[in-house]
């Protein structure tokens, strides 16, 4: 009987594509390319001796939020949109007011001897203050510091602060940071207003 030689039959590869599509759809459904955005902060360490560093009242910018989401800054009621400019004026203290922050002469690399403000912003909220309001205040304070830093970066380096950070020139970035150190303190909240919890 003649032996017929048979060609090996080819495996049909069309279903491989189906399997691959299934896997692709699975990954598309279960993952997301969204980036997480956030305001980075550093909390103060827990064991803080309250009497360790004496601070003067003039150096502190007091921001109070009550249960009604009203804001009081340095004894005056203010709206959120006014906070940024007030903070900038307070920290710059161009008129060298005696009830606003004092300055300390520091040796900053790249910039030389500069007057650095001793100003600290202190935010205190009530337990019933709305979180969105609180975040709005944080946002405005950070914006104030950013604008001050941008102005300084433009004046000394000809670019704004963000571009300076991205260009990776660490010494210049550090110099600007030392010129305007971001000191935002969070005081213990009070429980004056709001519901009885």
């Amino acid at each position, binding site marked *: 009987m003649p032996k017929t030689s048979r060609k090996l039959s080819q495996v049909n590869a069309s279903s491989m594509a189906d399997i691959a599509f299934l896997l692709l759809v699975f990954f598309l459904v279960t993952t997301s390319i969204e980036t997480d955005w956030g305001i980075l902060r550093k909390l103060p*360490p827990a064991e803080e001796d309250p009497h360790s560093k004496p601070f003067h009242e003039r150096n502190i910018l007091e921001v109070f939020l009550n249960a009604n989401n009203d804001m009081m800054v340095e004894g005056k009621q203010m709206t959120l949109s006014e906070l940024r400019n007030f903070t900038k004026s307070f920290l710059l203290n161009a008129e060298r007011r005696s009830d606003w922050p004092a300055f300390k002469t520091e040796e900053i690399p790249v910039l030389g001897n500069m007057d650095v403000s001793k100003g600290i912003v202190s935010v205190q909220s009530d337990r019933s203050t709305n*979180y969105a309001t609180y975040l709005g205040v944080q946002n405005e304070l950070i914006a104030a510091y950013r604008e001050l830093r941008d102005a300084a970066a433009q004046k000394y380096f000809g670019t704004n602060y963000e571009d300076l950070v991205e260009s990776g020139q660490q010494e210049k970035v550090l110099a600007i940071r030392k010129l305007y150190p971001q000191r935002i303190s969070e005081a213990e909240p009070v429980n004056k207003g709001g519901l009885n919890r």
Partner: protein
Amino acid sequence: MKRESKRSLPQVSTASLPDIVFMLLFFFMVTTVLRPVDLKVKLEKPQAEEVQKLENKEEIGHLYIGKPLEAERYGDLPRVQLNDAFVDKRQLLTFAEELDQANHPERIVSINVDRGVEMGVVTDVKQILRKGNALRIAYSALPDENE
């Protein structure tokens, strides 16, 4: 002269189709991250302009604070969700301590708070994080383009 038999159009080879699909698949596997968790709390993030992109997604611990979605089962007060379960103060403290930010400076805690939550819960969480020495945090918010 031999007449050429009528030729049918050659079939398009589909052998390379799975290769293309696998390439797409690998692209997505590389550029995306598995969504971390199913939210058990109602979460509407507030908007802020001064937000920065949080790099290094693997080294972020996510806390979600808001009113539980299943109010009948969990009540109406805001709860704290870590990864995929609600936590109490003790578990939160353990989490903060185990994060060991002292030895792992790139790790941060991303706090996602619903915009309607009041500051009491948030402050308690921050106090516990301070106690557990997890000091690097980020308030999660959506970027806001409006000036």
